[in-house]
């Protein structure tokens, strides 16, 4: 029974790793080897110089689009943690006449699939003149009803005694939040931060809609553009994919503890 379990898991693990292997194999091969009539497990000669050629190729704005993606992901992550964290705390802890109204407005957005609002949001963002602009890529993604709701649920369960001690020391809501609540919630912030970063780095539809000129492409848009056109070297495309995954694999490996906990906490309660 035990042997069967391990056999099943190992078989599944091999299947799950095949795409990663393919990205590397194809990215480090030569074009000739990729189109060879028989399958080779690993290229005869691993071409590390593909990396240099990829970044030197002016037709593939990889470095530029990676920087764009990084800027967008960092700003969106930081912005969401600040804005949604504050809002979540206010909704959870500050008694106010209209807080239920705001809460309903936040929860209602969970019913509207974000992807369906891309047409109307595009309309608003283009009116603001933010097409192909960093503001258009970053700002609309900051106001996540989902993240705010998760923060609220989390802060509802935050031990009140800790806050009361701060209150006795003369801190107001603002001081209590920044000096006591945030430092004691690092794990939760880290979890939501990793999720926000991964989501932002991998998002595709919104950047596709809004980043219309090449200078504002994110890495996903850049890859997609070459994927659906005939004009690029397939080897370089795979290598570019490998490079685009790398930052996230690093984040994953480094912060996996937080990430797994975060997913399990957020997914079910949300």
């Amino acid at each position, binding site marked *: 029974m035990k042997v069967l*379990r391990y056999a099943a898991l190992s078989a599944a693990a091999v299947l799950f*790793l095949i795409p990663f292997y*393919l990205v590397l194999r194809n990215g480090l091969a030569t074009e000739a080897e990729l189109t060879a009539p028989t*399958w080779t497990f690993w290229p005869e000669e691993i071409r590390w110089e593909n990396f240099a050629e990829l970044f030197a190729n002016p037709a593939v704005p990889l470095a530029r689009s990676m920087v764009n993606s990084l800027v967008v992901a960092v700003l969106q992550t930081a912005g969401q943690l600040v804005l949604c964290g504050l809002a979540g705390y*206010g909704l959870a802890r500050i008694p106010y006449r209209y807080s239920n109204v705001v809460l309903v407005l936040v929860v209602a957005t969970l*019913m509207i699939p974000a992807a369906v609002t891309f047409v109307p949001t595009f309309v608003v963002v283009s009116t603001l003149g933010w097409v192909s602009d960093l503001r258009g890529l970053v700002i609309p993604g900051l106001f996540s009803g989902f993240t705010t709701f998760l923060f609220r649920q989390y802060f509802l369960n935050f031990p009140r005694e800790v806050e009361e001690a701060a209150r006795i020391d003369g801190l107001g809501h603002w001081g209590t939040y920044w000096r006591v609540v945030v430092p004691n919630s690092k794990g939760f912030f880290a979890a939501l931060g990793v999720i926000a970063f991964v989501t932002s780095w991998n998002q595709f539809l919104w950047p596709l809609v809004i980043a219309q000129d090449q200078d504002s492409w994110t890495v996903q848009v850049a890859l997609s553009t070459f994927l*659906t056109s005939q004009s690029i070297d397939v080897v370089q495309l795979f290598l570019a994919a490998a490079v685009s*995954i790398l930052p996230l694999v690093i984040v994953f490996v480094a912060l996996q503890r937080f990430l*797994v906990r975060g*997913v399990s906490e957020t997914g079910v309660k949300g």
Partner: protein
Amino acid sequence: MKHGRAFWLFVGPFAVGLLVFVYVPIGWSLLLSLFEARNTVTPTEFVGLRNYADMLTDEPFLASLGTFSVFAAFIVPLTFVLALALALLVNQISFMKAFFRSVFFLPTACSYVVASLVWKLSIFNGVRFGLANTVLGWFGAEPVAWTVSTSPPWYWLVLVTLRLWLQLGFYMILFIAGLQRIPQHLYEAAWIDGASRGWQSLRYITMPQLRTTSVAVLLLLLVAAYQAFDEFYNVLGTDRGYPPFARPPLIYLYYTALGSGGQDFGHGSAGAVILTLLIAGVTLLQGRVFTR
């Protein structure tokens, strides 16, 4: 009202953003859906409900709803069962548990664009020496044109396996979290009463205890299936545009509202409103059915 000031200090910036980037767009969309608005985001001529009538009789739009239904019929049950199976397996072992959990979760780091690249140009690339066709060749089968063949529609296999690979690990984690909340003494009591450790424990203890997790997973899966865009666009799209088959609602909406053939925001907005009502309805219904 001293709390009022503090409240708006905390919630105000977020609330303003929510209004501007969520509620104003929705309101504008409702307005635009009642107007003619081609190549402009300002309403031109009032047409009442005509855009809605057009969309509801528009063959490609209705076909896109059909495409979504087929996709959901594959992806929702398959992901549910396989993610649960992986979670049960990973949860029952002690040695190398973290390793297997990480391997299954790692695809979450990949984007749909990257997965589409691998699926389209490497595994299912349709040439004789593509990975899938190489494997088929070992059994003497003819190579298959995976993404361009419509009869039989092999592209479903490409799209479904792609999404399975990307999302199984995420739902597995949700199930593992649910499994870990089940008190061990329930199983022990059942075993004393003579329940088998395999099937009967699963049927009478595990599944009922996983009820909330299961409802959440099904809802998330359905909404995610309905939002399908990335892999369809990247796997089936070509330099000559998107083929007439397998257009899920968002692909259709994207080409209507922002496609190169003319930006039709009136019809696009009407389509977005119809889709929103549809998914909200299904979500409410599903929530009600499963929580009863």
